[in-house]
């Protein structure tokens, strides 16, 4: 599975982008997007903002306070997008691109037992199911990830030298390291 995490300002400017792969079940944390996919990612994320706004301002699904974690909101082909909104209307978007096998698409989906790289694939399929963005475990993992990132994000923007109002791009290496750590921990 490959991920791209982006933070978008209220005016749709990207403030921070980080791509990584899964670290679960033996993953090495390196994203595996094809070049054409990589070119489309910003478009997909940008277009998902339409849906984000819809969900954000649409009828509330939960009673009382509006949730920050909007869960899985959009999908383009095999790219699934989850969203978290901060109090300042900054959007965290996480794009998930599961491996083809996890979607039941790949050539190994029919005869997964025999595949040479069966270690991981076998493990995945033995857990019983294909990737689903609304799966409780997936949602929980993404939520934890967002929560960690949110915490670091708050600490970053509290820096008096960081000009939040102007929509400064986040350059802090510490923040990047923390996002990477959260990614490694939960995804």
């Amino acid at each position: 599975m490959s991920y791209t995490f982006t933070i978008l300002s209220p005016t749709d400017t990207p403030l921070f982008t980080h791509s990584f792969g899964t670290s679960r079940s033996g993953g090495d944390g390196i994203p595996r997007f094809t070049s054409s996919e990589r070119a489309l990612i910003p478009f997909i994320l940008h277009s998902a903002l339409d849906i984000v706004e819809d969900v954000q301002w649409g009828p509330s699904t939960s009673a009382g306070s509006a949730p920050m974690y909007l869960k899985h909101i959009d999908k383009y082909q095999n790219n699934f997008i989850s969203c978290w909104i901060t109090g300042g209307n900054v959007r965290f978007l996480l794009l998930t691109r599961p491996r083809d096998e996890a979607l039941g698409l790949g050539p190994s989906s029919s005869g997964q037992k025999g595949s040479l790289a069966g270690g991981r694939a076998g493990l995945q399929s033995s857990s019983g199911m294909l990737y689903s963005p609304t799966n409780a475990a997936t949602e929980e993992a993404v939520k934890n990830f967002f929560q960690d990132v949110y915490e670091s994000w708050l600490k970053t923007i509290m820096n008096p030298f960081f000009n939040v109002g102007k929509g400064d791009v986040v350059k802090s290496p510490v923040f990047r390291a923390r996002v990477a750590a959260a990614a490694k921990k939960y995804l």
Partner: protein
Amino acid sequence: MNPLQDATPRPPKYADLEASVILPKQRASPASSLTSLPYRRSNPSLHKLFESTSSLAGSRPSSGTATPTPASAPPAALSPGSRQNGTGTPSSLQPGVSDEYRILIQRAFVPHVAVVADVETETMIRGKGIEGGLLQLLRPFGETVPGKITIRDSIGASKSHADFGIRFVGAHLGSGLASLPATARNSLEDPSRTSHTSMRPRSIGGNVAQVEEVVDRHLQYFEFNAHTAASGIPGEPHTLAPEANSSPFYTLYLRRLLSGLPLVPHETFAHPVASVIAVSSRNPNPTEEFRRLYAKQREGELRPPPWVDNEYLRYYVLVHEEETGDIAKSNQVFDQMKRHFGLNCHLLRLKSQQCIPSDDDSVRLPTCEWMSSAEELAEIQQRETADDITDPTPYIPESDITAIRTFVRELVAQSIVPQMERHVATWNEQVLARRRGISGRFMSLSKRWTPFGSSRNSSSPALGSSNTNYDSLQGFYRPDAPEAIMRKLADYSFMLRDWKLALSTYDILRTDFNNDKAWRHYAGAAEMAALSALMSTGPLTSKTRTENIDTWIEAASYSYTDRDRSAAPYYALRTLALSLELLRLRGASAADDAARWASRILEMGLVGPVGNALFTERVAACYAIRKGVGAHRMGSRLRKAAFFAVLAAEAWFRLGKSLQAEKCLDVAMGLYGARGGYDDGVVKIPFAQMREFIEELRQQILGLRMSIRGLESEEGAEEEVEESVVVEETETLDKSPRMHRRSLIGAVAPATDLAGLTPGLEREREEEKKADHFE
């Protein structure tokens, strides 16, 4: 129950399954070998063929900003642009959304009329220079019946339609057509099987690959000609009007998709509603000839397949020849006919001598708007390979046209429509009401739950079991079964535009077919139920929309492709494409659904490369409908729309269609601008990568355009390059003819990745170029 006339059960063709699911690559058709030839744009006869798209391509005639196209104006009644003001549009039509496609759909499902003529008539009409005989002469005039046609619906309310039409079809009603459309499609490719009808290609559509090819031809023609004609068009700034991107090519795509509906058991649109039997006055014994032709159609070689109801209306026409015929004698015969047949006959007076364009009152035989893709392809090929550049379309005297118009009007207004109304009323009373009533419900219940109905689920199907009328072995209902009659009733009322009755009937049929496990029929009923619900002008609540229509569309597309033994991707595509267009008309809240179905088409892989680009464009158009409210454009889908427009631009670029690509890119920029605002006149795009991607795409498209223009000016030796073009582009222009020529030999779309040239290649071409200079 009499034994089946067609006793040999046709085994389902499993072998075709794969072939029909995946679109064939279309190498078999001879047309593909010709696609590679560059167009001779001087050919006027060819231009006529491409008129439908090339004259409209720049701007739609309805939009106010349209620059008047200098193209020779086609007769107003036949040009597609003149139908914009249709009746019965949903009242809540958004500004800027035309119901063009609704009218298109309305005009696609019309009664079919078979044409038979005796030998004398055919010889006489061939003598006029019309190779296709009476059918070819009548066909263009049936497409729009002159004047308004008033139709009474099931509750007795009358409504007039100005755009009613009928389709004249050949008398060989699918005689070469096997029971499954999949095999029919294959027989199209197989030349040996089509030989027996005539030299003319079968006028049966339903072949997605051919549709794609036709549209591709049009695109190619447009691409090559627009570059030379006016370089102004591509540079023209596009304003943000959503209808600006409903391209004429998409209209053509849909129209070809709906042309020549195949004759199949699961829907009766292509089944003849009536038949015209024509006999010439030259014939020594017309009455005897009428009888002979009737018998031929009823029992003889023209007998339709067993699932087609043979009891349709016969309309008798006496063709009188003005020059040599004796009108007194003809009148006498005609009087006799009138006594026999009542209203269902006509005296058609035609001139027999050949007409040439320079004659006083000669009129060009109009082109058929609704010819099938196979026919159009054949026509294009024929004209391309023909050496003379004169227009081969025959001319006919004006008096003939008037006569034919009168004939068609009379045929439709006095015979076909009343006949259909009568049928609808009778069936409604006798079959549908009974099925709907208490006893009908009970019947269907008992049918379902009968304790002795063991044969229903057992493997020995059909013939013995009295519980179901479905012959699951051959996959059809006999035409006298109540289900078949109800389907006919529903189709008739759909064709007569009584959407309400159609909807309720389709809905009943849906459950019946479901119980019988007649999946193809079930899919057909679900499809038409969704369409008639969407066609009706009344408002739809979003609840019915999501609960009923969505499930119907879903069920239809699923049953057409996955559930059946032989998948029918053509029908699935038809379902999705039509419902997406109709949903799109229903305003902002339905636009999301429309876009979803459009992306479904792409995901299911129902279309080829051209369709892929067209439908991607369409997704963008669907999203663009939702403009959002307020200053913040709440609930808009502009970003999505822009994204898909960029995707469409890329798809067009990959197909080598620079003009289309550029148009899409302009639309995308307009949408991004509307959303993100402008910065010194430059559209603000937030992501740097997006900017880069778009910039690169634009460069590539520019390069492609240059290379195509380079091909054009090939003979003009070294044409000077425009100043504005950067150095890199100059190079492109110089070497491109060669490159293009090479790609043409391979008959592949030129994937000119100009940016990715390696230095080595670059040098090589440089040398090549030099060698060129010295030659």
